[in-house]
């Protein structure tokens, strides 16, 4: 039994209610009037967005404006994420990481901490009646976590190294594309690689200072999916009292500006190429970007068929490569990326096909049938993102912390339906005429340059050969005698002869005499001695022959 006084009020309540409270059943009426969008409110100074479909489970998340875009020093966002309850790390003032984990297990919940370029997200998925316990837990994690030295050295550093080891070419290419597209801010890498020098910036005190600046009421949003508004307004107010309203050192960043360019990183292993264009920002009214992403698509959604998507058709011509289009939406900018992964030669071929496909949209437009399919795909992506996967929750939070409104699904769907073929064609044209951001990671001997693909890029070519793997081979040294195709002995004989001949007459005679030798040799074949030859004569004879034939000297 968990000792009674150790459990706080909220958790006691949750434990007492467990079983007693009836799981709210989804009624037919609820199906008839689904609430697809998050409704923003403000509870005791905390920005809250909630959506309730009367389901049996709840997802509660704190979205804090502390993503890599806002970190004052490299690596702090990652440190903040790892210090949160994930992996059993944080020791808050009241309870240890172990207790948090065990209690959550008893309640059948999942805890997760992750970050995007703009936000750090602390999320708990749990049964509907446990809302008080998890509202208290999340508030405690952001307000009362102790950033201790020993946990940093014993736990955080290890987890960061593990995650760095998992970074693949695709992630590095996406980071590189963001870096050339936005330089600072959004251009900061999502996860520092092993070659990023973070150790001088990342320590427990810098993380604690960043946490103080980031975890304030002004800087966070609480997003609830599947929690009643009454429950939220009842529990958020008391538990979030300890969260400071504002911090003297707030997180700031400059507005994003699109630059574009090219970056190439040599890396062993899989290859990745990212072609990126300015995309649609969060809350921007650009439905044609979403439809264009739907049209470009990626992996076919239907089995045994390449489908209608342009990218899956393009990669059908290059077996061994996969391509995927997506729009990375941020508060004040967006990046439409086409990512191609696979073997170097296949990636190169696929990249050429992809650019051709884009050009075909610009020149020939899209057929009515494909347009309908693309709009349907964009609609499905939007709805499933806001319903099934966590992206809806993160987007709603990102909108709130940047002062916007959560996505209104009904209006967004209507906008998607209004996209015509001409609009799509115009959007594709703007993309190709603008500056692209191209990032190639892998075998640079094969992977193409942006110019080879026919893409426009900015005047300055940002080329970096920062090898991520330290095991890069040094260039092999070849000797002149080896290149000439003679043996080392012959090379020495030639060299010494040249030296002797370049001497003055008196010295030369002495030297040549010194070089005279009375050695004789014979070649043994099949156990029988061959003809006995004078070595000096044989040498001279061989020197007359072509250099490649030498070897006996």
């Amino acid at each position: 039994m968990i000792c009674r006084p150790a459990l706080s009020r909220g958790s006691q309540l949750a434990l007492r209610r467990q079983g007693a409270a009836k799981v709210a059943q989804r009624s037919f009426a609820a199906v008839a009037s689904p609430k697809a969008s998050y409704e923003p409110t403000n509870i005791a100074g905390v920005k809250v967005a909630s959506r309730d479909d009367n389901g049996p489970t709840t997802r509660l998340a704190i979205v804090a404006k502390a993503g890599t875009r806002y970190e004052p020093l490299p690596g702090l966002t990652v440190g903040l994420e790892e210090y949160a309850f994930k992996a059993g790390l944080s020791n808050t003032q009241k309870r240890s990481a172990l207790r948090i984990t065990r209690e959550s297990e008893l309640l059948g919940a999942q805890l997760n901490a992750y970050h995007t370029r703009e936000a750090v997200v602390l999320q708990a998925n749990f049964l509907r009646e446990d809302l008080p316990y998890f509202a208290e837990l999340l508030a405690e994690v952001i307000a009362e976590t102790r950033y201790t030295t020993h946990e940093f050295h014993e736990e955080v550093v290890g987890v960061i190294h593990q995650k760095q080891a998992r970074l693949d070419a695709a992630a590095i290419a996406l980071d590189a594309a963001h870096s050339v597209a936005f330089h600072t801010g959004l251009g900061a890498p999502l996860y520092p690689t092993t070659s990023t020098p973070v150790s001088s910036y990342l320590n427990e005190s810098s993380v604690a200072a960043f946490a103080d600046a980031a975890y304030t009421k002004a800087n966070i949003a609480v997003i609830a999916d599947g929690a009643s508004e009454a429950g939220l307004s009842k529990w958020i107010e008391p538990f979030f009292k300890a969260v400071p309203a504002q911090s003297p050192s707030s997180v700031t960043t400059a507005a994003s500006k699109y630059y574009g360019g090219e970056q190439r990183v040599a890396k062993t292993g899989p290859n990745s190429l990212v072609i990126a264009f300015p995309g649609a920002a969060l809350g921007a009214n650009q439905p044609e970007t979403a439809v264009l992403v739907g049209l470009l698509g990626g992996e076919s959604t239907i089995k045994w068929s390449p489908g209608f998507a342009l990218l899956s058709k393009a990669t059908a011509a290059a077996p061994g490569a996969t391509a995927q289009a997506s729009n990375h939406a941020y508060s004040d900018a967006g990046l439409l990326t086409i990512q191609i992964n696979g073997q170097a030669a296949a990636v190169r071929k696929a990249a050429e096909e992809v650019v051709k496909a884009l050009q075909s949209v610009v020149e020939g437009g899209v057929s009515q049938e494909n347009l309908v399919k693309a709009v349907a795909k964009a609609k499905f992506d939007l709805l499933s993102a806001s319903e099934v996967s966590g992206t809806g929750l993160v987007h709603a939070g990102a909108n709130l912390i940047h002062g916007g409104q959560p996505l209104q699904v009904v209006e967004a769907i209507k906008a998607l339906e209004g996209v015509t073929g001409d609009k799509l064609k115009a959007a594709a044209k703007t993309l190709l005429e603008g500056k692209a951001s191209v990032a190639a990671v892998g075998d640079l001997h094969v992977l193409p340059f942006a110019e080879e693909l026919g893409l426009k890029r900015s005047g300055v070519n940002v080329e970096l050969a920062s090898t991520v793997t330290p095991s890069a081979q040094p260039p092999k040294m070849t000797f002149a005698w080896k290149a000439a195709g003679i043996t080392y002995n012959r090379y020495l004989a030639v060299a010494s002869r040249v030296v002797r001949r370049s001497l003055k007459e008196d010295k030369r005679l002495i030297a040549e005499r010194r070089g005279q030798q009375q050695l004789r040799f014979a070649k043994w074949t099949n156990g029988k001695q061959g003809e006995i030859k004078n070595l000096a004569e044989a040498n001279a004879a061989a020197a007359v022959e072509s250099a490649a034939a030498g070897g006996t000297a």
Partner: protein
Amino acid sequence: MTVAPSLAAGVAKRPWLMKLLTPIASWYTNAAGYRQMGLRADDLISEEDETVLKALSRLPARESYDRIYRIRRAQQLSLQQKILPKAEWTKAAEDQPYLSPILEQLAAEASEKTALDTLTILKKN
């Protein structure tokens, strides 16, 4: 780390007893002789223990360096059959615990883990 049963908490609660025992305690500590070698009480904790090793790894770098210096100096003194000049003896104010708080923290972590590992769920309904 196994700790012998201590009456310290009981004594601290009773001011009159505290007043009575404090001179005796300080006489005893000085008589123990480690202060004359420049050591602190926490330097005497045996290192041959997993918990103590873990606690030592959590010491700040400066603290750890000073600890090693004190121990090596004491070893040298012991070899030479000497004690430090009186001015360098550890003063009572300097003899603060630096390792035992970490040891207590580790013990609390371990006991919490045991408690959570062996808990029984009682369903109320």
